């Protein structure tokens, strides 16, 4: 087990800079998820930690030891690849034992560690099989087994679930999390799926365009997104955002959207006349009478019942709004309704910088 420290890490491919000075710490035993859209640099960052990419500038340290010039195999880390990367000509057992054999471990040790890993991952019936004879989920488990037998300081996962179908993905998600709780090995997990990030992480690093947007626990990011990008990236369905101008009168305030809709501001920060992006999550909106005070007038365009909850698409002025409710409201497309906003749940961001306005 070990901590990992990134300090001012940069990466350039030729003259193109893809990582712009990233620095953060991963604590011993922590499950850290790097999340961001495609091309944000999260995989590159992981590969730099793995030793598969050169570090252009800055340092990466594992357990306090700078590893910039240390070969992958001497970093004491193990990686699970998106494509599994199993050796097709070796059995499951040989795949898992490969790294130990290369290290000239004793046969007894190899056998011991392999049976332990096979037991943890329920791979015991498949040890003599070849990867081509396994299902996607089983291959994924073999890839994890290959990492476990090494008993490394840090586990690296590079989008390990993106090749699995939706149902299996949910199951494997839970398995990986259970595995971490059992082994308590420091884990760095890369994904572009924010649901994976939210459900698995101890802490999340949200990346965008080669920069860190925000670091925090899942709920911290959800409740207090530091900027507009994080606000819209974390959460599904995404946060509603309306652009407008802050108007304050007699102690209360609202944001006046470009088409003249008044969105109640509550206690949120922001100066009179400031151009802002007004954010409210779909579950913090509710339906009310169109004539109620402070109700935001809107027209229902789509009703999507999912059983447990109902998702409504609404048009409020120029803005497309999503509302999620646990009830089963008796509404139809075309109905004119009012939206009630929970004022405490409003997020306000500076329109130019995208930064959250401190309350």
């Amino acid at each position, binding site marked *: 087990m070990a901590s990992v420290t990134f300090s001012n890490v940069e990466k350039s491919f030729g003259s193109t800079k893809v990582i712009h000075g990233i620095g953060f710490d991963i604590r011993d035993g922590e499950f850290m998820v790097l999340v961001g859209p495609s091309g944000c640099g999260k995989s590159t960052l992981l590969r730099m930690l793995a030793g598969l990419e050169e570090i252009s500038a800055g340092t990466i340290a594992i357990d306090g030891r700078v590893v910039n010039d240390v070969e992958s195999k001497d970093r004491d880390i193990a*990686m699970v690849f998106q494509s599994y990367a199993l050796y097709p000509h070796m059995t499951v057992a040989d795949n898992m034992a490969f790294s130990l054999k290369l290290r000239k471990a004793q046969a007894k040790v190899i056998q011991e560690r392999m049976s332990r890993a096979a037991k943890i991952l329920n791979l015991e019936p498949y040890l003599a099989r070849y990867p*081509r004879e*396994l299902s996607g989920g089983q291959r994924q488990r073999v890839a994890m087994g290959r990492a476990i037998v090494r008993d490394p300081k840090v586990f690296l996962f590079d989008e390990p679930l993106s090749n699995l179908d939706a149902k299996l993905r949910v199951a494997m998600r839970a398995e990986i999390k259970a595995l971490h709780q059992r082994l308590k090995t420091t884990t760095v997990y890369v994904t572009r799926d924010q649901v994976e990030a939210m459900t698995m992480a101890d802490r999340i690093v949200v990346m965008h365009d080669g920069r860190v947007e925000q670091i925090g626990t899942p709920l911290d990011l959800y409740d207090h997104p530091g900027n507009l990008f994080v606000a819209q990236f974390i959460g599904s369905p995404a946060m509603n955002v309306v652009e407008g101008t802050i108007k304050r009168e007699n102690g209360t305030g609202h944001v006046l959207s470009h088409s003249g809709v008044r969105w109640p501001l509550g206690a949120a920060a922001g100066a009179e006349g400031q151009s802002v992006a007004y954010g409210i999550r779909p579950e913090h909106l509710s339906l009310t009478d169109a004539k109620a005070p402070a109700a935001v007038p809107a027209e229902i365009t789509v009703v999507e019942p999912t059983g447990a909850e109902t998702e409504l698409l609404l048009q409020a002025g120029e803005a497309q709004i999503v509302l999620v409710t646990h009830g089963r409201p008796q509404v139809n497309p075309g109905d004119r309704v009012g939206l009630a906003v929970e004022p405490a749940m409003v997020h306000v961001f500076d329109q130019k910088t995208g930064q959250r306005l401190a309350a």
Partner: protein
Amino acid sequence: MKPISLRTVTTEAKLLLIGIPVLVWTLLPVYNLFLFSISPKESAFAGNLWPDHPTLHNFAVVFGEKHYYLSHFWLQLWNSLLIAVTVGVLTLIVATCAAFAISRLKVKGGRAVMNLALFTYFIPAAFLAVPMYKTMGNYGLLNNQWALILAMLTIAAPYSIWVLKQASDKLPYELDEAAKMDGASPLQLFRLVYLPLMTPSLVAIGTYALLLAWNEYLYAFLLLSNDRQITLGVALGNFLAADDSPWELLMATGLIYALPPAAIYYVFKRYMVGGLTAGAVKS
């Protein structure tokens, strides 16, 4: 039974119309070879479709080295085999290492090597026969079997490198990265991961080089002259030096000479299958 449509019939007919002439065209010379080899000397040129008195006498003469032209038959057959196998093995070593270095280790200048390899095929091998003869002379290798082995290696290697490089490019690169993280050195990667996965291509290329050397006449004729050094192919050519060539023996020897390649092809064909990398990565 499924009714056969007119369309199926015409398609079949068209295929047969092309197939039968091609089959006859291909088999006729082979049949002629066979016919000569089982005919007695007197009736070899009789022009019959089947000899009146078929005999295996010609083969007995060949195997017993009982003719002037055949006095070193077994040695020459051995020479052919030795040279062909050596060329096959050496080509494999050179081409596999080159392909691994260029495709997997991504050494600098790899592209240039690939382009040069392709470029060598702009020049027909026959054009290079005389320069090659002179070069081997400079090295003092004339009439040494190494001259032929090296010459054939030179001819076979570029194509082999090209083919193996293309095949290596198809292996998923994640495997190399996984092996690297597992602690494999480049040599271990080569031995434990790369070679096993390349086996089908290696068999194909080895067979190609082996057969190329086995069938080579021009370079073998140029670079070797001593009766104890030449290959059987050159020895066959020597049959034609006399006015009254023993055709029936020439054909019998020719038939024997043609059998090993056919055997090699059928033995190795089953190794030349794809699908070995199935299950490596999600595709």
